[in-house]
């Protein structure tokens, strides 16, 4: 008889996502699919002015409509619900889930309807009449900083949410500032690049908008809350706190989540309101965000203005960097709002050994939707500011942009490397990524092609960008929630495996990658493993998925819990096989003594024995289930190099992306196919930011890009075929060597495309162009010598 086939090692293989069939066949359950007996529906009446005092709210017509259960104004909600907490240690104005007397951005809730279905609820919300005393609105952060024409929160003069925090060289932990080193760097410089740059506001636009179902059961005194969230455990913590329940009394469930991109980390007013109303009325309630609401009610991303000064010697050696950041955070602080721009400061050294850096940060309130995390969250901004400045420096010195980078890289032997900004980069080999990207792009040949195209009068340009990002977010000192992740691995009686993860995947593919790891660990087929997530009733502890942490932190916890269970299972197997546990191999669905596979016991039979252990081996408890918390010692710092080629239509200014080459180093890859998918998505959103995406408000604070008719999101047809490759520099900070990759694509792509467009328009003397690269903006540079910044 032929030996049974040996199961292949799965880690490192391009295993197809197990999640996809149910998602693409419409068999997945999202929040909006949840229906409970007696469930009522919420609709929010939202402000249509950007800034105003509420004179009166007339809810009479709404209350008498058929099917309307209740209507609550902000004042009535305030009796049920404390102000919303934030998750950062910064001062914050009072923020009510439903505005009480003043609205501060268009779309802020002013009342909420409870009705028998969402259509009645929507009609009733329309029937509420609100009278406002309109106040002046401010949408320009630099104007807002003067306190004119309005102060949005009286306790925050000049609209300063966070006023001028310095960081970097010469700034001590106590906050004392010594300018000598940074001044000396600029005094010694042969050349200084100075540029104001805008990293514009974006709308995260998840395919599934937000939604919540809250079900308080008065008989039990407990709450179940379903939400389209990236972090059900954090949701549980905050919902418990605001509803006066214990964390044991709240179960939070994130069913299928159709994209988050950072915008579903925040705990939103609608979630608190749903929980409070459900508890108050003793009935289940549901709210489903519609697309128009999503544009105003879900947090926006980016919107950071940078004044960048880069000092260098004439040979290209960078001596110093000054970064003055102004973050337009919108009308309120949300969960992580204030912390996001601090990541821009943290990453100001980029991939370079910059001896002196000074960054300052000011965060400003404006009458816009609040900002919070959006894919990359502070790091794309840092990458953009520094890489644009490096590109300008290369142009100024007439150096090849790749060679300028090479000259200033942190070298492989310098890792771990502590930057002037306090980041400690774990590992890196930037030159290797650069060289592979140059080789794959055929950089010198591209230059020849570009020059040949230019000789024909075409506007063709090349751009290159490096990036390094901070991922694998933890340890606990960096997050108020704690920075660990948790897993419980259970070998079931039939030999199948279930593993919980506190990482709450919503597109990251962890049902596949974590199963790949366990399949290899236990020598069983992938199909025998189920990854459980997104339910605090099932997953005992967790933090969530953000900051590209699910694999590096969550995956490590799974691996650790698996190792503990495996060790116990080996003891049961050793008893059965009368062997020493260290001599056993787990392979091919069998546990056997090394060198004699025929003598082995099936994995399932050992599992069965562990649950009916007759006799019970000495020193063992029955069962095969164990848990692990993984607390990383530090963040991981993946990196890469992106290269693009762009052509601009001379007559219309329309840019076309001809080529995008990316080399990304995320350490060891569990599943290169999923990694590529993550990079594709990140590239799409990064290219989207560069070329077609921008949230636009008018001077009165009215959102002008409030639908897909005016807010463009990238489609497959907007891109060339991406040319991807990877270098592998493992992190020493976790046993997997994995760093994280979810956000990477948004970092390198934006500055590399702007660089290519500036290169294409170099004949017009332009040095920098702010995103988004509207055709009209480029047309003005071509035809009128304006619009660009030179």
């Amino acid at each position, binding site marked *: 008889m032929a030996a049974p086939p040996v199961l292949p090692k799965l880690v490192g293989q391009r295993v197809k996502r197990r999640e996809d069939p149910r998602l693409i066949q419409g068999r997945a359950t999202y929040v909006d699919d949840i229906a409970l007996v007696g469930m009522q529906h919420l609709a929010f009446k939202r402000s249509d002015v950007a800034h105003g005092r509420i004179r009166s709210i007339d809810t009479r017509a709404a209350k008498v409509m058929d099917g309307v259960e209740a209507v609550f104004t902000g004042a009535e909600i305030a009796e049920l619900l404390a102000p919303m907490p934030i998750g950062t240690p910064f001062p914050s104005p009072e923020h009510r889930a439903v505005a009480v007397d003043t609205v501060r951005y268009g779309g802020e809730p002013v009342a909420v309807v409870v009705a028998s279905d969402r259509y009645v609820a929507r009609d009733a919300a329309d029937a509420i009449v609100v009278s406002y005393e309109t106040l002046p609105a401010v949408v320009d952060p630099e104007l807002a900083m003067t306190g004119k024409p309005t102060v949005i929160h009286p306790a925050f003069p000049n609209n300063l949410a966070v006023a001028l925090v310095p960081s970097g060289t010469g700034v001590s932990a106590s906050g004392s500032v010594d300018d000598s080193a940074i001044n000396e760097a600029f005094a010694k410089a042969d050349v200084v690049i100075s540029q104001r740059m805008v990293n514009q506001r974006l709308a995260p636009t998840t395919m599934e908008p937000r939604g919540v179902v809250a079900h308080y059961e008065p008989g039990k005194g407990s709450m179940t809350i379903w939400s389209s969230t990236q972090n059900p455990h954090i949701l549980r913590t905050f919902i418990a706190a605001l509803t006066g329940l214990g964390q044991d009394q709240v179960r939070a469930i994130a069913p299928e989540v159709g994209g988050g991109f950072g915008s579903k980390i925040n705990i939103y007013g609608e979630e608190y309101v749903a929980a409070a109303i459900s508890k108050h009325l003793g009935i289940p309630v549901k709210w489903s965000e519609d697309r128009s609401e999503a544009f105003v009610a879900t947090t926006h991303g980016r919107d950071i203005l940078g004044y960048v000064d880069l000092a260098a010697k004439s040979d290209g050696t960078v001596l110093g960097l000054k970064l003055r950041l102004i973050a337009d955070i919108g009308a309120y602080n949300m969960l992580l709002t204030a912390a996001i721009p601090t990541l821009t400061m943290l990453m100001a050294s980029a991939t370079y050994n910059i001896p002196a850096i000074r960054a300052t940060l000011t965060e400003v309130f404006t009458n816009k939707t609040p900002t919070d995390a959006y894919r990359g969250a502070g790091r794309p901004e840092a990458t953009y500011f520094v890489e644009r400045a490096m590109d300008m420096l290369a142009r100024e010195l007439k150096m090849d942009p790749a060679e300028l980078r090479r000259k200033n890289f942190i070298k492989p032997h310098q890792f771990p490397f502590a930057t002037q900004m306090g980041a400690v980069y774990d590992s890196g080999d930037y030159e290797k990524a650069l060289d592979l990207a140059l080789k794959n792009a055929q950089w010198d040949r591209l230059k020849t092609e570009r020059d040949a195209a230019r000789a024909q009068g075409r506007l063709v340009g090349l751009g290159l960008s490096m990036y390094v990002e901070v991922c694998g977010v933890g340890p606990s000192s960096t997050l108020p929630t704690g920075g660990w992740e948790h897993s419980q691995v259970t070998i079931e009686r039939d030999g199948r495996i279930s593993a919980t993860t506190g990482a709450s995947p919503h597109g990251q593919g962890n049902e596949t990658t974590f199963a790949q790891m366990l399949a290899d660990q236990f020598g069983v087929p992938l199909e025998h493993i189920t990854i459980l997530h997104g339910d605090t009733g099932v997953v005992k502890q967790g933090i969530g998925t953000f900051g590209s942490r699910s694999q590096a932190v969550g995956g490590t916890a799974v691996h650790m819990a698996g190792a503990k269970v495996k060790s116990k299972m080996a003891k049961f197997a050793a008893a059965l096989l009368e062997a020493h546990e260290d001599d056993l191999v787990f392979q091919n669905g069998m546990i056997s003594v090394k060198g004699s596979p025929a003598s082995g016991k099936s994995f399932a039979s050992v599992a069965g024995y562990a649950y009916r252990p007759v006799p019970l081996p000495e020193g063992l408890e029955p069962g095969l289930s164990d848990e692990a918390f993984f607390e990383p010692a530090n963040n991981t710092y993946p990196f890469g190099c992106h290269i693009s080629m762009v052509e601009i239509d001379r007559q219309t200014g329309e840019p076309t992306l001809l080529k995008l080459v990316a080399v990304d180093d995320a350490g060891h890859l569990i599943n290169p196919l999923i990694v590529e998918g993550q990079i594709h998505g990140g590239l799409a959103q990064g290219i989207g930011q560069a070329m077609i995406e921008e949230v636009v408000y008018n001077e009165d604070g009215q959102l*002008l890009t409030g639908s897909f008719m*005016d807010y463009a999101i990238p489609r497959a047809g907007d891109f060339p075929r991406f040319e991807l490759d990877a270098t592998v520099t493992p992190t020493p900070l976790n046993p997997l060597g994995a760093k994280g990759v979810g956000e990477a694509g948004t970092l390198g792509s934006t500055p590399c495309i702007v660089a290519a467009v500036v290169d294409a328009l170099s004949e017009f003397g332009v040095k920098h162009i702010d995103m988004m690269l509207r055709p009209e903006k480029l047309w003005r540079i071509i035809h009128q010598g304006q619009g660009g910044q030179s």
Partner: protein
Amino acid sequence: MISTPFEYSRAMSLDDALAKLRATNGEGKFIAGGHSLVPLMKLRLSEPKVLIDIARIPGLSGIRTKGDKIEIGAGTSHHDVASSALLQQVCPMVAEAAAEIGDPQVRNRGTLGGSLAHADPAADYPAVMLALDAEIHVKGPKGWRMVHAHDFFRGLFTVDLAADEIIAGVQFNPVRSAAYAKLHQRASHFAIVGVAVALDVNNGVIRSARIGLTGASSYATRLKDVEEALAGKALSMPNIEAAARLAGALLEDVNSDIHASQEYRRAMIPVFTERALKGAMSRALARIQ
């Protein structure tokens, strides 16, 4: 994104549709593909009490020859126009323009009649109909009437179509030497500027030209000055370029929005006029060979 309540009924013939509409006392609207109407309803900018579905009226969709002419039923989807072998053969501009509308979902559902009746200032079809001097066939309580495209578009979202009338289809003489060129708005893929050109060329001479412009102003119009500049001229690159330079100069009302200022739009009119003219010219030349 939830409309106000409405009733729904399906019409099985044009007369049935008209009768059902009459019965709503002005509170009803026809719906075919719904790709203009439904977004307006979801934003509550349009709140009809009754929707009368005309999408399944037998014979209302389809592309066929009618004597020397081509007839396109009002219910024909953009996709069916874009992929019509007949149109690609005898009047490729129409298929070319349809293929540039919106995105695949819009093209699968949206219809020619809906686009013409709605008359979005940035819709593609109105320019095409102007260039073809299409006849728009309309049925109402008093029976049939025919409106030439150049009389049909009257203003912003305003056409020569009474509230109690329905578009049944369009007819036009196919023109092979015709082309459409468009600057896309990247979010909606409506036209920032769209230009449709139909040339009547004989022995290398442009006997006449008709040029329709969309996206630039509140409704689609003809570029008469360019048409006149081309009439009687030899079909040549210099003549085309010279004529295109005139395009839009006489236009008083030019749109401005976050996607394109008035100045930029104005500058794009000659650019896309020239591109459409060159497209039409290359088709004219291909025919001669």
